[in-house]
């Protein structure tokens, strides 16, 4: 049993007016009993709460729609993470979550893959490796999923192609790159997050990192907003590439003659206000016809890949949000759903398969479309 008093103070819950904007906007309410307004209410009226009786707290993707909508400036998603922390500290968590956390502690990635294989995706490419003594102006922080996942490795390789075309002086950390900790923190493992933050800050210092570009909005968000003492510029690649195009440093020689829509990653859009750069990149690609989802930007529908949900199946059945997204895209007449996040990529690709839409629509990362349009060098 959890004593509610500390939570009420820690998260300033007395300011909650129970208006319900949080729950009304929660994308998970489409398929989960998760009701953050009711949870806050229980914190306010009860002395103790048995968190184990509220398994749907693991359904939250930490997309932060609730936070954006709260008229009192509260952060409801943080309350759920705080509740997860209690359970994680007790060690009573789903085996898939446990395995992801243990793997991250042992191997520096949640995918159970060996440290020594982290840079295998770059084999055959001429990528500078800072951990092998190279120097570069920009650190390309690849991230765990682009490093190890077969599908998303192609995104990292497309990134290299784009950087090379624009003559960007970049390097990677190779096998010394480690999980950023974003998802671990959201799974309630604050100690692991702190451990990873300390390790990573030390690595960045050791290689004198001055500027960083990330593949994943999750790494970007946590480095930019959560790392204490990180004193250089961090950009998501969509910001960096949009700038390259605008300054004429990256030009297109090919065309992508396809109708493309765009899935806003929550950690890029809702949490960091980066809505325009990804769209600017897509609209600058010759031949590409861009159509926006009805629910886009602040109102974008989460793909369910964030908040550690890559390792947690939802507590209830029902249509996955990514499946709704694929159907919406088909209705729009899109041939490609573009995204800019490894988790969106994986959840949407799964949804394309489960909805049987493989012949009609494809999921591509924005940087893959850019790589297609710059042609062969």
């Amino acid at each position, binding site marked *: 049993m959890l004593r509610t008093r500390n939570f009420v103070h820690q998260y300033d819950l007395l300011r909650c007016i129970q208006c319900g904007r949080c729950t009304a906007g929660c994308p998970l309410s489409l398929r989960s009993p998760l009701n953050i307004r009711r949870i806050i209410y229980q914190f306010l009226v009860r002395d103790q709460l048995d968190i184990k009786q509220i398994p749907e707290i693991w359904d939250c993707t930490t997309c932060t729609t609730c936070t954006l909508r709260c008229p009192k400036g509260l952060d409801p998603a943080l309350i759920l993470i705080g509740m997860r922390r209690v359970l994680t500290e007790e060690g009573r968590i789903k085996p898939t979550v446990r395995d992801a956390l243990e793997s991250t502690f042992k191997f520096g990635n949640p995918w*159970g893959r060996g440290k020594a*294989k982290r840079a295998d995706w770059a084999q055959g490419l001429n990528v500078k490796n800072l951990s092998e003594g190279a120097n570069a102006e920009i650190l390309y922080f690849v991230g765990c999923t682009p490093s190890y996942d077969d599908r998303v490795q192609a995104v990292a390789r497309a990134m290299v192609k784009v950087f090379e075309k624009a003559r960007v002086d970049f390097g990677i950390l190779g096998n010394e790159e480690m999980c950023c900790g974003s998802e671990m923190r959201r799974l309630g493992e604050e*100690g692991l997050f702190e451990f990873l933050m300390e390790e990573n800050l030390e690595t960045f210092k050791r290689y004198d990192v001055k500027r960083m570009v990330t593949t994943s909005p999750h790494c970007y968000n946590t480095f930019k907003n959560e790392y204490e003492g990180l004193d250089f510029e961090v950009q998501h690649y969509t910001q960096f590439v949009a700038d390259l195009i605008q300054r004429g440093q990256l030009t297109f020689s090919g065309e992508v003659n396809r109708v493309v829509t765009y899935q806003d990653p929550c950690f890029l859009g809702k949490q960091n206000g980066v809505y325009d750069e990804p769209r600017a990149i897509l609209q600058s690609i010759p031949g590409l016809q861009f159509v926006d989802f009805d629910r886009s930007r602040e109102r974008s529908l989460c793909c369910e890949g964030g908040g550690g949900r890559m390792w947690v199946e939802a507590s209830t059945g029902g249509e996955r949000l990514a499946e709704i997204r694929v159907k919406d895209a088909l209705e729009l007449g899109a041939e490609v759903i573009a995204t800019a996040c490894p988790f969106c990529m994986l959840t949407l690709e799964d949804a394309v398969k489960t909805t049987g839409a493989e012949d009609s629509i494809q999921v591509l990362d924005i940087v893959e479309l850019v790589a297609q349009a710059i042609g062969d060098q």
Partner: protein
Amino acid sequence: MDIVVCVKHVPDTTEAEIGIRDDEKGIKKEGLVFDINEADNYAIEEALLLKEEFGGSVTVLTVGPPEADETLRMCLAKGADRAVRLTDERFEGSDGYATARILAEAIKDMDYDLVLTGCMADDDEAAQVGVTLAEMLGIPHAALVISTEVEDGKMKVHRELEGGLHEVLEIELPALFTIQTGINEPRYASIFGIRKAMKKQIEVLDLEDLGLAEDAVGEMGSKTSLVKLFIPEVTTQATILEGSPEEVSSELVTILKNEGVV
């Protein structure tokens, strides 16, 4: 119920490239990540579940180098009450028999109702220590246990046998069980929990503390001696099917049918 759990700190080799030492008596340990032996992780969980239901204590015990403290601390973080490490240079080279001898000396004077070990260690896969230890302690044992029930002064255990059979045994306590993986769902030890466990003391005992003779441990005390460890040569008997997923899968079905597998 007072329970002693024997655990081993082993290298995690699932994703690692294994190299053999020059003397061919072991693997190169540089760069390897070490962790609690998988089956032992289920054994410690089973002990903690029994303690949570029936009260008592859990003592965790290991024969190993100082680095094995990592595994002991994780067990303490999960809820073990006491940790003991048996460390001595002269223990090196012990086989399953000699290792069981070291553990038996440490356990025999403890108050215990139950001793649990994993069914097998991931590194040498000998599955010897548990049952040998039971013999040395003079207590009954059950190997490959997949569920436990407590009865008055006795326990009922299920064992997994060949061919998918289950055997149910009733055993008088004190007894020793070697625990099969899957018996429970091991809990997670958080980083804060492990850091807190750094404050708990780990008792360290050596050959003299245990009162063992030098020739009872290490290579001298062993019944087997390791001749050579090597990586088998890659043979060319594997067939790699090529083509589209449809072609490959239908070819695979044909092969399986021809071989009488399905």
